[in-house]
């Protein structure tokens, strides 16, 4: 028996997607974050991406650690199961969930404290294991929830609200993700919805570890002069590598481009990532080149954004382990329990 999603009744003029859902069917509880917090814009982008992708909300599992950012899964996809786990440990919980049922979509939401400090190890290991997931770090360069301490992504030399200067080197999660084998890597800005929504869409259609570092200003503790994660600073230094459109089957092609200006990358599931190049020399299928470029632009003071790396034919943890196609959580006694006769044989071998 299967149960078809039943859209709620809405205003007749609200646009609906292929499942008959409106954007509102992808919303969650009312956010309790500060007005203007970048995290809320990312939630809105997730809602928009899932709506546009015609995703059945209940087929998504949304997982997080602890922090303002990690609270947000409550504020989108209200019809999905969510899991607010412990600080820095979302990746392991997500990995376990993914092992149990390979058929759901896994969306991990984390913060820079959550992923670059306490959970740096789990972040790294989930990426290198190749867990099929969309992993978004809502990166504000501070610990929002504990009121504004520097985080491990705070840039060296950046200034705290109360004036202290950060002397520690910053961790660039993009660099680590690239090095550890993430097969879809992007960076964006919560204030740039046009860039962020397609980036999330591409990630959710990606069959491997997809990592997005999304700079997301904290208006309460890190949006002042001297901060390198403020709205103003990011707008000024944002250097987009490309513009992304995610084309799925029937989607119309919206514009004509001059030859050499666009590049189509087909993902494993048939979706096409159409990249309009903003930097002619940038090749998003070249991992080593991407790492090099990233370092180069960073030294020049730019924040590189866009789809930075894509491996169109990735292999995930299930493929590595060789697990059966059927989700492990649906295997019953017959498939799992060897039974009394097998045990009797085993007993005989132990005498």
């Amino acid at each position: 028996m299967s149960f078809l999603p039943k859209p709620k009744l809405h205003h007749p003029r609200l646009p609906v997607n292929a499942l008959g859902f409106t954007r509102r069917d992808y919303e969650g509880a009312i956010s309790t974050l500060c007005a203007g917090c970048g995290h809320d814009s990312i939630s809105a982008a997730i809602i928009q991406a899932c709506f546009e992708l015609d995703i059945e909300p209940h087929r998504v599992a949304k997982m997080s650690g602890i922090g303002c950012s990690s609270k947000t899964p409550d504020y989108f996809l209200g019809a999905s199961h969510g899991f607010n786990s412990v600080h820095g440990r979302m990746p392991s919980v997500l990995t376990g969930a993914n092992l149990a049922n390979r058929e759901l979509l896994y969306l991990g939401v984390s913060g820079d404290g959550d992923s670059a400090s306490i959970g740096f190890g789990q972040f790294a290991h989930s990426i290198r294991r190749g867990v099929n997931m969309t992993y978004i770090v809502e990166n504000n360069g501070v610990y929002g929830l504990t009121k504004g301490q520097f985080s491990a992504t705070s840039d060296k030399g950046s200034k705290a609200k109360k004036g202290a200067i950060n002397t520690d080197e910053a961790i660039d999660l993009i660099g680590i993700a690239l090095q550890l084998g993430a097969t879809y890597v992007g960076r964006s800005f919560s204030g740039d919805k046009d860039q962020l929504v397609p980036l999330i869409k591409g990630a959710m259609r990606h069959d491997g570890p997809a990592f997005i570092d999304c700079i997301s200003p904290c208006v309460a503790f890190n949006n002042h002069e001297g901060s390198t994660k403020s709205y103003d600073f990011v707008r000024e230094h944002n250097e987009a590598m490309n513009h992304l459109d995610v084309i799925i089957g029937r989607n119309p092609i919206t514009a004509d481009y001059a030859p050499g200006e666009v590049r189509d990358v087909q993902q494993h599931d048939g979706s096409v990532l159409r990249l309009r190049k903003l930097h002619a020399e940038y090749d998003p299928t070249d991992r080593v080149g991407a790492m090099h470029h990233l370092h180069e632009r960073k030294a020049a003071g730019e924040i590189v954004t866009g789809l930075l790396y894509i491996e169109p034919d990735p292999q995930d943890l299930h493929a590595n382990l060789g697990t059966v196609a059927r989700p492990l959580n649906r295997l019953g006694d017959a498939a799992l329990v060897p039974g009394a006769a097998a045990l009797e044989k085993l007993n005989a071998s132990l005498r």
Partner: protein
Amino acid sequence: MPGVINATNDFVVKFANVNGSGSASANQLFAKSILRMGIPIASRNIFPSNIQGLPTWFEVRVSGEGHLGRRGGVDLMVAMNPQTWDRDVAEIDAGGYLFYDSTRPLPRSRFREDINVIGVPLTEMCNAAYTDARQRQLFKNIMYVGALSALLQIDPGVVETLLSEAYKGKEKLAKSNRDAFHMGRDWALANLACPLGLRLERADKVGERIYVDGNSAAGLGAVYGGATVCAWYPITPSTSLAEGFEKYCRRFRTEPDTGKKRYAIVQAEDELASIGIVIGAAWNGARAFTATSGPGISLMQEFVGLSYFAEIPSVIFDVQRAGPSTGMPTRTQQSDVLAAAYASHGDTKHIVLFPEDPNECFQFGADAFDIADRFQQPVFVLLDLDIGMNDWLCEPFAWDDNRRMDRGKVMTAEELEAGKVFGRYLDADGDGIPYRTYPGTHPNKGAFFTRGTSRDRFAKYTEVGAAYVDNMQRLLQKFETAKGVVPHPILRRAAEPTRVGVIYYGSSSAAMQEALTALEAEGIQVDALRIRAFPFHRDVDAFIAEHDTVFVVEQNRDAQLRTLIMNECSIAPQQLIPVLHYDGTPITARFIRAAIGDKVLANKVLPFAGAAAE
């Protein structure tokens, strides 16, 4: 002239070996051949964690009476490691025997006057018979088994059968092993006074029992319990549990046509990730477990609390060792009882199972998953190094084919569709156990947001104190329900009515049985209760109430189970007398008998402070 120990089917043989010399399979052959003669044995590996020099010992206690605990003392030392020679020779009981490789002569000063020395020129014989260095090494081991078979009267037919079984389909190998065995045996028959005072006589005391280690058994239990996800981080003495699971999964859970696996095993980056993976998998409806030891338990604390409060089943096998991390990792103890029972911050308590031997490791290894699903909380299975890493003679594994996994209260899409009320933390049935849903069950019903606390019965966010208290009370109610479901304690009554009782658990069981027999023979009547799980069944309270004096036998310093009983059953400290053994070696019957017997006879049963047996 030294004295001579004479004993039939009742002695201890200890092998001193160099690790990696191929001695393990020869020693196993020795042990199994005695079992095949129908004589019970208890065997133990002893290995220091310091790898240098690689000494290992293998101790076989032959016991026609069927005693499976460690006895203490050595009647025959097979001294094959020159590096540990002095301490090995020193360990032999007066009148006992020293078996050694006499190829190179040793000065008299390296021996003892009060023991019987048996030299066999093993190296010389090997060098004469074999040219290949590896063969010389391996067959030397089989050769000493041959010589021992003559000295102790092991039936050579039994050894030949075992060798054919071990090398089934490899007749050449089987034959060369047989030849080496007979070479040793014939030499001993021709050159030594066979048999010794120590002898084996065929018996019929083994029956259907099997010989297996607790870690493999627990891993097999997890297979039968339907576990599909295992996440772990290597640590002695638990490593072979995860490896056992993998071995049996490969055999039983590989799809014949595709070669695909009906299981997933992740060697995680640490124990935090291990338990995180377990919790994520279990949240999503798979049965999942981790295996670790004390240091890993310490690292898992925060997550264990999440599993308790968010009510997510998790199974944790803790193969206990002497603490701490830089302590004695290759020595046994029962010292994680409190760390498991009260793991994590906040008000938490957990279900803990205490298997006594590999048979129960298998049984509890499977049951733990039903219990965890039923109560939606962590379940600890507390093995220890002694049960986990040694082969034990135990009842054969048994399985009822009519048994089905008990997944507990899981609300289905049909039930949701039919309008059944779903409150993730709602006590719908009055037993404290709520219903859960697996992610992805239904398009618009049954989804909820999982977090530790700060939510109401319907999983809606709230920080209202009354809602918190309501939830905490329900968790207590759930724990109360568990008392009647977890494995109940087992009572062994003394021959005559008595006011003296003893409580024990886990791997102390074998030594305890033997001690009870000895006490009974001395006319000391003791009722005994073996605790198999926490929370404690009512029978525990009743047992304590029934006796004036209750000993609690444990393998730790601080009397941890006693503390747990005092706390959970509201027992006054003076009612429970600790009997504590914690030097890292397995507890012995001699120790228990002395500790209890002397106190009862002297009739000076003391309160806690002065009474701890050293």
